[in-house]
């Protein structure tokens, strides 16, 4: 075992993406993360109890359950243990509270009213564990007129200003392909708990963290807010273009088929951010005449004639193999890369050799490549040591370890519906 957070522990109520990802990052860095799940209201990312199992996962092992075979849940809960407790029963809540003194941090991403309704708001937690760190990730934050309004990535993207900026040039606002605001909030929540741990190491004090997904995501597009404050300009979508540089785009490569849908995709991303990069690009393209073309004479001219420029580049890249061209440009100092689809990301040898992607064997879903360690620490390297947990997989073990719960007592809790797994009886 290694990682910078070895020795820290969280008992967390995180779910879906933002919260689950936040605590997954803590777990990957070495913290022990005990995720508390509620069978009556399963994590939406486990899918419904009757959801179909994806074709390539189905039938791999005996006794598969849909809620343990969701690609969404299993992607963002590495290095965690799962216990189930019904917090609306006195015994479930009492058990939860008995675990809290073992925790350095708690995290959750319910609507703000939920913790208070359960009687486990920050002040309640402090009574149990005075130096606890509590991170609450909610749609709009714990105060203000929208505090009780729920939200998910797909609705925070528009309300944080992101959707209004995402899209093809001159086109309608779009959401990202996979609810980008959630992992942004997750990264910030992870950072917040780390900053609080640093403060606690120095002072012994815990604290409360109020993360509004709307506010967190607005910082990521904050430059546009500052532009409005300074100039009154309201930006719209700019496609793959850049405010300053041209060329800057995603272009078809050899083998790209017409129509897109169902076709074979081969695209290359490339940009020139300096005159030197532009000269190199023209050389690799075998188009020295671009250097003397008045329309492309300098960056300002290229920006002014960007449609013509993109047309010329498209005519060239469409004849070139994607990966060879990307390598030629990028190794010569011109930003360029193949556009990978999801399966190409999983197969990428560079991501694998750097340890970003490793094979993880899940107890029901089998062995699959997964994205894990996000950055490399030379002295305290982190590692993926556990697959996403099955629902309630670790309840008996965790309760025995911390509370001395016997097998008989655990069975009694299952019989009463306080714990267990799968659809409630």
């Amino acid at each position, binding site marked *: 075992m290694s990682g910078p957070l070895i020795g820290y522990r969280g008992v967390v109520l995180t779910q*879906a993406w933002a919260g689950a990802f936040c605590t997954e990052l803590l777990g990957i860095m070495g913290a022990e993360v005990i995720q508390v799940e509620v069978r009556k209201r399963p994590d939406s990312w486990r899918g419904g109890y009757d959801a179909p199992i*994806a074709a390539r996962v189905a039938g791999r092992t005996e006794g598969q359950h849909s809620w343990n075979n969701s*690609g969404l849940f299993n*992607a963002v809960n590495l290095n965690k243990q799962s216990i189930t407790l019904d917090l609306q029963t006195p015994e479930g809540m009492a058990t939860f509270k008995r675990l809290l003194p073992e925790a350095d941090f708690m995290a959750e991403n319910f609507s703000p009213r939920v913790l208070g309704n359960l009687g486990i708001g920050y002040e309640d937690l402090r009574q149990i564990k005075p130096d606890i760190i509590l991170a609450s990730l909610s749609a709009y934050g714990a105060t203000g*007129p929208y505090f009780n309004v729920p939200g*998910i990535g797909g*609705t*925070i*993207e*528009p309300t944080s200003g992101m*959707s209004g*900026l995402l*899209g*093809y040039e001159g086109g309608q606002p*779009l959401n*990202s*392909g*996979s609810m980008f605001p959630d*992992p942004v909030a997750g*990264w910030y929540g992870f*950072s917040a708990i780390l*900053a609080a741990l*640093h403060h606690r190491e120095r002072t012994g004090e815990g*604290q409360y963290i109020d993360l509004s997904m709307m506010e967190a995501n*607005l910082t*990521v*597009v904050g430059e546009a807010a500052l532009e409005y404050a*300074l*100039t009154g300009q*309201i930006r719209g979508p700019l496609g*793959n273009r*850049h405010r*300053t540089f041209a060329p800057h785009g*995603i*272009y078809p490569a050899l083998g790209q088929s017409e129509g*897109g*849908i169902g076709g074979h*995709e081969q*695209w290359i*991303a490339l940009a020139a*951010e300096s005159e030197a990069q532009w000269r190199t690009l023209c050389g690799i393209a075998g188009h020295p005449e671009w250097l003397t073309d008045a329309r492309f004479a300098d960056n300002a001219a290229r920006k002014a004639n960007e449609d013509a420029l993109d047309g010329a580049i498209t005519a060239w890249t469409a004849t070139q193999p994607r990966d060879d061209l990307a390598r030629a440009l*990028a190794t010569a100092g011109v*930003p*360029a*890369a193949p*556009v*990978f*689809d*999801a*399966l190409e990301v999983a197969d990428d040898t*560079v*991501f694998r050799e*750097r340890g*970003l992607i490793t094979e993880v064997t899940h107890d029901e879903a089998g062995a*699959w490549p*997964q994205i894990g360690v*996000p*950055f490399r620490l*030379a002295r*305290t390297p982190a590692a993926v040591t556990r697959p996403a947990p099955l629902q309630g997989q670790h309840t008996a073990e965790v309760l025995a370890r911390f509370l001395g719960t016997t097998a008989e007592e655990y069975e009694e809790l299952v019989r009463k519906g306080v714990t267990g797994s799968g659809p409630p009886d």
Partner: protein
Amino acid sequence: MGALADIRVVDLTSSIAGAWCSRLLADFGADVVVVEPPEGCPLRRLEPFAVDASTGERFSIAAAYVMANKQSVVIDEANGEGAALLAALIRRAHVVLTSDASGRTLVEERPDQVHVSITPHGLDGARAGWAGNDLTAWALSGWASVNGLADRPPLKGSGSNASMVAGIGAFAATLAALVARDRDGQGQRVDVAETEVLATTFSPSMLRSLYQGRPEARDARVDMTTGPVPVRDGYFALTISRAHFWRDAMNLLGLTDLAEDQRFEASWYRQQHRDDYVPRVEERMAQWTKMDLFDALATLRVVAGPVLTMDELTANPHLRAREYFTRPASGGGADPEFPGAPFRMSGTPWHLERPAPRTGADLEAVRASAVEPALGGDE
């Protein structure tokens, strides 16, 4: 007092990711000195520009945003005095940030120092020497392949979003190394690849694609299940997750048959039967204004998202009530309002003290605090 009030940082980066990392460190209390070359950091040449009313000078809005709360020194490494100042700054720093892909060490490393390298592809591996930027991170991480529409090219996120997220990742990486250092006094080298930070945010799409045996792809069209659709005065997203959101939203829109059809309560079922309800729902949504629809759904506690533009966000009553937008404290009120804290810490609050410095503005002050005390035997 910020959570990082005990931390001194030297920022030698020249990227948005590096600058956002050190901005966050500064916002949470660290003392951050940015080292710029004589011609100024390249971020200062990024468009769009605004004009300083008091001096008439043009300045980059991107740089104004990501360089706030820091001090700036200009150092010409070719000059002996400059090299000595740089060495002194690094000697007294707890954290050194670089964006140089060579990973070179500028001075003798101290065992208690955290040295964070922030580069497009990391310090080793077959792409280590490749040029990269925000756009290539979208391409390699898989995100571009799912953003946008099927009959159009893959689409990057807007602005510098990938670089900004990489900056958050580098901020977290720095904090992780500092927490380890808190316990044993030892620093370390940290290798942050911008592409890899963005790729972590693609993990659900990747694993679901693997389970399905085909890559998730761009949608053929925008509809209410995937993103914002037109309403009377703009666009609105009704991307529903839980069953009661569906029931309450359909009842509000007067589509009681859809509300009562229990099959639609499961999100996997709704995804598989989009054509059965999407046109009817969108037709009803189009009769509403975006804020009326948001308010009505909010009362029912249903997730919903009006597409807000920056003028609307700046005036938004919720953000105003939370006092989100903030002017730098030391600026005397002449600065524009900045977006505020990405998260609020009850014990160690986020704080925006100063606007972005002019290039080299703090040279004398930094020299006085870095070199002279060091000569006098400062730690």
